[in-house]
């Protein structure tokens, strides 16, 4: 039957579009900005309620491996003239994110929306706005694709 990998992404996209159109189902603070193809999607993320990131909006870029959902997507914050990544102990200034769900702990039972929600809650629970240790070194030598970085996961709850 040789299942086409993209069937999952098509379903996820459909589901996200349905959810976005319905305020009752929509994950608050997460919005799909662009999904022109099944390769790269963009989301905007805000942390609602009290948090260190009140009134800030971030853009998340999600790039899919052809083997998604069996391989995790490459996820990073967009860095551009218009948007900046959050200052957070797990987010480098080049937008790369150190979170185990994006690497070792990825499971095909998860979804793009699950990633967005995890990242949103990672921001919501942040106690102190600071850059990751060794940010400058990392940013100078980092591969373009964060999936090529071997992150050492510290504490995902920070």
């Amino acid at each position, binding site marked *: *039957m*040789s*299942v*086409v*990998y*993209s*069937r*999952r992404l*098509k*379903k*996820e*996209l*459909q*589901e996200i*579009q349905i959810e976005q159109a319905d305020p009752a189902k929509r994950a608050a603070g997460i919005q*799909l*900005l*662009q*999904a*022109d*193809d*099944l390769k*790269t999607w*963009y989301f905007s993320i805000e942390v609602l309620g009290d948090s260190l990131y009140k009134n800030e909006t971030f*853009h998340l*870029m999600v*790039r899919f491996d052809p083997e998604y959902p*069996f391989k995790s997507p490459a996820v990073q914050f*967009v*860095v*551009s*003239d218009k948007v900046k990544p959050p200052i957070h102990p797990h987010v480098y200034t080049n937008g790369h994110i150190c979170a185990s769900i994006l690497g*070792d*702990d*990825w*499971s*095909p*039972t998860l*979804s793009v929306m699950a990633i967005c929600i995890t990242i949103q809650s990672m921001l919501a629970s942040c106690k102190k706005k600071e850059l990751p240790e060794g940010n400058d070194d990392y940013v100078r*030598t*980092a*591969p*373009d*694709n964060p999936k*090529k*970085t*071997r992150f050492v996961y510290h504490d995902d709850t920070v």
Partner: protein
Amino acid sequence: MEPKMPGFGDFSPVSYQLPDPLDLRVQVTEETDLRSLTPAQLYELNQNYLDDTVPSSQPPISELAPLSTLRTEYEGSSGSFIKQIDFLIQQGYEGIRRSRGDGDCFYRSLIFAYIERIFSQEDRKVAVDSSVSTLQDFLPRLREVGFKDMVVDESYEIPRDLIRGIIDPEPVSMSTNGTTLTPAHLLREFQDESTSKYLVTFMRMITSTQIQGEPETYEPFLTHPDTGETMGVKDFCRIVVEVLGKEADHVQLTALSQALKVNLKIAYLDGRSQDGRVEFVSFNYASDGKETPLTLIYRPGHYDILDRRSSEPLPINPSP
């Protein structure tokens, strides 16, 4: 047709065009000083080396082969493994069906054996119906523990269609061209990477759900495979059971055979037995206690399927 999104204002990602990841391949010669490379380049280099040296040519599930082929692998090394293999052959286990050693081998072996045994049942219709209903009965529980409908449905369709295909050519959108599924077709389906991964994913979801359904039974035995630290049920399931490539241990074996309601027997080759005897460990969860067990063979870190036949049976004709 790929779905198109309606426009989303002026958000433009052009400032973030990225080069092809292949461009990042590190070029090294014998003169290259490895210390001059960045950590990312070193990782890349190591990964390339691994990709080149670990044979990826092994299919997810292989054809049945004589167990003596395994014996030849140990010649010149461990006498104890050879004795244990000879013991199994004497016990009438003449064949081995290899499952690729990628951490998913237990789950893949078990679902293959689970489906394949239906071919040898006297009443295939009964066997098909009961296997499908065992899986189907599990679906509400999968949703209860929080798997999304989309994920449940896409993973369930595959084993369901394969099993039904054994007696019914209709629901099969597979490579059978309107005939019922033969053992040869089944093998081919399992050799398809995506099909195999969906099957493994479904087995992992069932295992996770079974463990979460009986936390008090399983919790005392849950430890992190790398650190040995104790783990809670939710974490264990999320990080150890539901992630592809994470090996299965006693807990997962128990949970999955319980969930599938099968008798499972594992021949443990530890390479340490003095007299060559092999210890079998049984997990008996079939409603009929006398049901023939599915049999796997374990060598440290790896599971394959153990069979009394030493080669593929001829394709079995569809039952009348």
